[in-house]
């Protein structure tokens, strides 16, 4: 199961796992879009969502959205926002080749 996630995650520089009807996922993908990133968005079903939650976030907080940059897990909304305010998200995206300039 996690191999599938890992495989999907490395398909593109930025991969976001979302769930249908998740409005926070919409917020994160909107932010990435705003930054000029073309992220691959995959909707996950209930089981996979639970797996994600368990593995990635240690059960705390919502499983989605889960953001991978350069095949590596970055985190959930909290992490992405914090990184962005710290000015570290954009450099990370650039390093992964998701952004130019």
């Amino acid at each position, binding site marked *: 199961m996690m191999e599938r996630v890992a495989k999907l995650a490395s398909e593109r520089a930025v991969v976001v796992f979302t769930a249908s009807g998740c409005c926070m996922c919409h917020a994160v993908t909107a*932010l990435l879009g705003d930054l000029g990133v073309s992220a691959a968005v995959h909707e996950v079903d209930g089981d996979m969502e639970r797996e994600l939650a368990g593995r990635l976030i240690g059960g705390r907080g919502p499983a989605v959205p889960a953001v991978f940059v350069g095949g590596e897990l970055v985190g959930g909304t909290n992490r992405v926002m914090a990184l962005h305010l710290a000015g570290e998200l954009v450099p990370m995206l650039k390093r992964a080749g998701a952004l130019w300039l």
Partner: protein
Amino acid sequence: MGETSSSSSHSRQDPCVLGYGFHGAMGNSISPANFFDQEGATYFGGLEEALMHHTPRRTEQATTTSTAHHGDTTPFATAATATAATATARPPPTLDIFPSWPMRSPHTPKEGSNVTADSTDSEGSSKNNSDHKASSDQQGGVANMTSQFDQISQEQHKTMATSSTHSERTGKTLDPKTIRRLAQNREAARKSRLRKKAYIQQLESSKLKLAQMEQDIQRARSQGLLLGGAPCSNSSSGAAMFDMEHARWLDDHGRRIVELHGALQVHLPDGDLRAIVDNTLTHYDELFRLKAAMAKSDVFHLITGVWASPAEQCFLWMGGFRPSDMLKTLLPQLDPLTEQQVIGICNLQQSSQQAEEALSQGLEQLHQSLADTMAGGSLIDDANMSFMGQMALALGKLSNLEGFVIQADNLRQQTLHQMHRILTVRQAARCFLAIGEYHNRLRALSSLWASRPREIQVADEGNCGELRMAAEPLRNQFSAF
């Protein structure tokens, strides 16, 4: 104290401060023996003493009222003259919170006959009767006080009853009975004053509580009666708890601001200043922790912003201040800044703006989704059929709301931390001062706005309670001057 003259005061000019429903301002025409016998002058002596000294200016005006009233207020006459009895030297002024009290009057020798008639009754019963009449004629919410005074009077009556011949009380005698009685007068006066103080405090706290309760009721009403019994009470108690904790946080914060201010003024060394600044940042972290807990328990309370002052509510974004706006306000206040710092802050502002925009979009999607759910099925035909289903769906979606408020608070927290990182210690101190002062001004604006003088419209149901509340304190504040 003026007890030494109380026995003879009836023969002098005397105030008739008849607080608590004694509407006749009585002159003290009664012969000394009578009213002392009947009314336990000590009881009224205490009342008199406690009440009279803020109304000396009314003495002249009272004359006419006393004559007007005397005819129909025989029991009051007796009571009143008792109050009139105690002419005293000037004890310290007491709190004038009952400006509508009748005025003092110089004694007018008219009621004598009435009172004499009363006095011929048996001592105990006449005393009790007049007292009860007096108390029953109370108007306004002072029955409590009256019953307290009643207690005093009854105490005094017992004492009075024990003293043998009241006819001895003529003129300024200093016989042992008089001395004892004067001492009792003093005691009663002191007790009266203490009770009055306690009563006033009770009133004030009740008033505050009432205003708070009215707010809570309005809040509960706006949250929708749909919630029914248990959930509603849960949320409102959680909300009340949060409000209280927030108020405490504000108090604490105020103190830290003062500390920061002081530290800057005395040019504390950076090491010490840093400690204070770091503490302030930690204190903000506590606030966000508090709000996060509240978001999980009752997100509506946070997002509607009723815990914040009205002016703050005006600018509310997802349950708090908008970080990019705050940064915009702060930037000019923090001069001088290095170019690098300015760039850093501008970048922070831009990032925050982007994050805010993303969150707002997400919230907008939630709104739309909720609206669709609410309108699901038919709102008209067979509306009941789809009701519960839609409600269940909506409840599920609502839980997402928490996430947004928590993320918004996260943004705020990150903004503060980033500013702390970018700025020097001194600049950071000034930054926190600026933020604190800005919110302070918003709160002050709210208070000023709430207490501005205006007509109280009784017809305005929603506000009239609060309006009345707001106007009254102002009036009371100034009446003392």
